[in-house]
């Protein structure tokens, strides 16, 4: 069955450093991967989408890479700030025709940025 895994449950880093979160998938090749941020007591918020034919996608201090050989996506936050502390979810987008899109989520990685 299709599985998407975020191996690190938690990541603690110092302010100003680059945070790198990992998302691995097995038994299939997703065409689209999304990354979401979730704060306590709130629903996930969309950050970035990367397609299988894209190596890298950037948005401000965020960068996502997609390596189909390693079956892995990396999510980077540069110059991290305490406000970046949250849980980050990787998700595979299924049935992406038109506006449709079922998401299969990983468990998430809780990032803590210490001042």
């Amino acid at each position, binding site marked *: 069955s299709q599985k998407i895994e975020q191996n690190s449950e938690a990541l603690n880093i110092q302010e100003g450093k680059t945070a790198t979160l990992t998302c691995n998938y097995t038994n299939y090749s997703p065409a689209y991967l999304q990354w979401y941020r979730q704060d306590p007591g709130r629903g996930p918020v969309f950050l970035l989408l990367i397609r299988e034919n894209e190596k890298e996608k950037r948005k401000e201090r965020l960068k996502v890479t997609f390596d189909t050989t390693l079956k892995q996506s990396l999510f980077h936050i540069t110059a991290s700030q305490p406000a970046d502390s949250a849980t980050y979810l990787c998700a595979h987008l299924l049935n992406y025709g038109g506006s449709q899109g*079922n998401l299969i989520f990983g468990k998430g990685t809780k990032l803590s940025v210490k001042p």
Partner: protein
Amino acid sequence: EAGVVQSPRYKIIEKKQPVAFWCNPISGHNTLYWYRQNLGQGPELLIRYENEEAVDDSQLPKDRFSAERLKGVDSTLKIQPAELGDSAVYLCASSGRDRRSYEQYFGPGTRLTVT
């Protein structure tokens, strides 16, 4: 623009009691999703609607769960009777026709506790 609205935010019930959750998606969004999120896990899809039609309810436990989306706007998710294992956060999301990101917009969720 108002986001996805869910009510109630919290609900505590005894097992075997019924419970209902309500969702109002973003105006103009044809696709509506219900997810369940257990503690420390990513959201898992229960059902997806395209307008008023349930196009994917394969993960919905139909013996006790039901959902409806009358007139293709608001939606209600019901559990009857509730079991202890149903304790979770129930998230509603909606999406439009943005093919650049296939972004899903999530509500804040309803935290259900079954005692």
